[in-house]
């Protein structure tokens, strides 16, 4: 099936099998390997991306369902080689250990801050509820998101 998707501002026209998950389309067809496959069961959130302004887990959506959509991935956060404020805050606060969950955390935090520019700690924790950090480094992740909001 032919699909037309805009990812991080760039338009892509591709032919994909209906069975292809959005995460595999991003990683394998577009070579955007920032979004990670973690659990592949919808639990870990490492594959989180923003589709038409809505945060989703891209392992639970088909690529064909993104036809006509605008997708944002972690690769689109930095502009002109400058880290986004949130990315800089993650770096400053050592909000990553192994880094595997980081792209998903950044997308969830991006979506959260768009809806709520000054979230409380509780709201931050709720906002990243769908993202698992198996290093359990949540404290610094929450600190980083708090700092980015200020």
């Amino acid at each position, binding site marked *: 099936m032919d699909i037309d998707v805009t990812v991080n501002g760039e338009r892509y026209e591709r032919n994909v099998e209906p069975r292809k*998950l959005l995460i595999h389309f991003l990683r394998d067809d577009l070579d955007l390997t920032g979004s990670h496959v973690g659990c592949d069961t919808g639990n870990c959130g490492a594959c989180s991306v923003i589709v038409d302004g809505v945060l989703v887990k891209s392992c639970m959506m088909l690529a064909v369902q993104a036809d006509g959509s605008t997708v944002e991935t972690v690769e689109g956060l930095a502009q002109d080689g400058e880290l986004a404020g949130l990315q800089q805050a993650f770096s400053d606060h050592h909000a990553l250990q192994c880094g595997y969950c980081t792209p998903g955390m950044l997308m969830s935090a991006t979506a959260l801050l768009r809806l709520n520019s000054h979230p409380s700690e509780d709201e931050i924790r709720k906002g990243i509820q769908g993202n698992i950090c198996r290093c359990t480094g949540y404290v610094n992740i929450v600190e980083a998101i708090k700092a980015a909001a200020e």
Partner: protein
Amino acid sequence: MLLREVEYARPASVEEAVRFLSEHDGARVLAGGQTLINVMKARVASPDLLVDLNGLDELKSIDLAADGTLSLGSMVTYSELIASAEARARPILGEVCAQIGDVQVRNRGTVGGNVCSNDPTNHLPPLMVALGATMHITGPNGDRTVPAEEFFLGVYMTAAGPGELLTKITVPPGKSDGFASVTIGKDGTCIVNAAASVNGGIRVAIGCVEAVPMLLKADSADAVRAAVQNANFDPPSDVHASADYRRHLAGVVAARATAQAQGKS
């Protein structure tokens, strides 16, 4: 994970969706996909054709009628319901949807998907039964309605049969509702849940203990406790809870949901 090969259709109307569903063996509705895509990965379900309803705006509306009846399109997502001013006419709906999964799941998962998948641990089947909701089904032979308490037929089975489609759920007016659950982790899968609604008498629907939500009617909180005991449920045992413990929890969550519905919690 690579899914088994599957065909994909994006109908432009409910009518066309019903045609796809009734004319193709092995066709299945793709709603939010937060359950179906995962069971397809595990090969537990292997549909031949996915009929994607995401393009059907007619299934995405939330309307509040003058008499207070709330109408929820089957493709309304949990997040849309939580954010809806109309849906606040029955606050328990948003409160319960906010306990399902996480932000990403709530952004994609739908009201219709939750009831039609009818996993015994889902939140909305007992809630819709307690609220006395009505399910609106359309199929090749036209439209029909089914009361929620007759909609859930068995594990993963509902009155929406092959070739049919749930289009909306209507919820009568009311405010005195409650919901309680014991979950695996915060906002995780329910071990036992219960919804209650007070409107004259008390309606309590208990989930996770049998294949379908178990409806009990009583006229006081004490009578709810007694009714749960007398019901003598036969819940499953698993690594999270023994059958005995689930049976005990059924009484606990029924009492908590009832207390909330009576404004006592």
